[in-house]
């Protein structure tokens, strides 16, 4: 661990690999969420599988939590080191927009908003699941997930927070996804294809999450 913290390139790899892992997770999360729109029964059965399968619960879930923690803790460490590297006197005039995008320069801001959203998300779903399974020790109910999830999208404020968070997630991914390939040393004839793919992914997946949230919100208002 000390070698990772000492070498700037090792720190970059940790950020890139944990980021790529989270990007992959986001994709599979989206696929499951999408079933809540097109096939609620499938959403229930997949959610139940994720909630009770021992491999998912005791192997994949800890890896996911570790991935999130490593990504944001390393992000903070890098931010602090990078600020210190400028020295004690800052520029009186610094035109960051002349040579780099706002997105690439403000990953810490978009990242903090996403982290806050993950906090809310954990409170909404993970804490609820832990309470259901281990504190209240309620029986397994493979049909409860759809109604519980849809109910979360009823309050307007929650949908607004959801939309803002996913817009910022899209911005975070627009820089981070392609950037992780550069960090891993991939800058070659495939780079333009990677950049296009990451842009499409970074926009479509968050847009899909937003669509699902709006779909459930407006369907509940109508009924």
């Amino acid at each position, binding site marked *: 661990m000390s070698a990772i913290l000492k070498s*700037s390139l090792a720190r970059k790899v940790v950020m890139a690999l944990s980021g790529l892992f989270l990007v992959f997770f986001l994709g599979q999360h989206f696929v499951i969420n999408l079933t809540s729109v097109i096939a609620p029964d499938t959403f229930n059965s997949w959610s139940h599988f994720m909630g009770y399968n021992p491999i998912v619960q005791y192997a994949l879930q800890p890896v996911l939590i570790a991935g999130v923690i490593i990504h944001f803790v390393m992000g903070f460490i890098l931010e602090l*080191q990078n600020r210190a*590297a400028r020295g004690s006197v800052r520029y009186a005039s610094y035109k960051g927009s*002349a*040579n780099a995008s706002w997105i690439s*320069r403000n990953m810490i801001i978009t990242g903090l908003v996403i982290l806050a959203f993950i906090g809310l998300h954990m409170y909404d779903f993970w804490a609820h699941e832990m309470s259901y399974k281990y504190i209240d020790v309620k029986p397994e109910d493979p049909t409860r997930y759809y109604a519980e999830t849809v109910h979360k999208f009823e309050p307007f404020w929650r949908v607004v927070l959801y939309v803002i968070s996913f817009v910022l997630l899209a911005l975070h991914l627009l820089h981070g996804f392609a950037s992780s390939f550069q960090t891993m040393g991939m800058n070659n004839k495939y780079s333009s294809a990677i950049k296009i793919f990451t842009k499409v992914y970074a926009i479509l997946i968050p847009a899909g999450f937003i669509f699902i949230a709006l779909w459930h919100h407006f369907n509940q208002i109508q009924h």
Partner: protein
Amino acid sequence: MKLNLKIWRQEDAKSKGKMVNYSLDGVEGDMSFLEMLDILNEQLINKNEEPVVFDHDCREGICGSCSLMINGEPHGPDRMITTCQLHMRKFNDGDTIVIEPFRAKAFPVIKDLMVDRSSFDRIQQAGAYVSVNTSGNTQDANSIPINKEDADDAFYAAACIGCGACVAACKNASAMLFTSAKVSQYALLPQGQVEATERVENMVRQMDLEGFGNCTNTGACEIECPKGISLENIARMNREYYSASVKG
């Protein structure tokens, strides 16, 4: 043209500096930025004031001595040039120009606009060389066939003049573009293979020891580099480093 200059003045490395305003008249568009500063200094000297200290040497864009953060950009608003190649025609009558030293913990200010960039020298000393047999039987370099594309890429990397604009532009004050250019110019050539593992490890270690920041791939360095050093070099340095790490 008449300009308002806001220039960082700092007595020495230990003093606390401040921005000082100067008004300069009679600036011609054909003057280089450094000639404009020369005129200011002549006026200051004639008034028995301390001239503004700034780095310069060849004044033709090849030595890497001149620096300066001009209106928030290293080497000013133009692209692919050093400060000595920046012409005053890029500015307008009545403009305010903010002139600061390159800012980085690893580039401490010596005086006014002059900074100590010896951290770059130490990174190069850590590995940017090839050991050549100079005992009288040195092999002719041309006797080793080298792929044209590799030779070109090595040459483009070697075009880095070590001015430090990459560090100055980077929001993290990272020196990865510089270090990667120096790694690449050897990594691409057969002569550089013998010391490849130690080179990248030692240079990256020295870069970190100097207190430069971490690269976050904003690409600012590539845009501001007067020699157009590409981000491809950073990816290459990363590959070299990972490969060296695996080899141990």
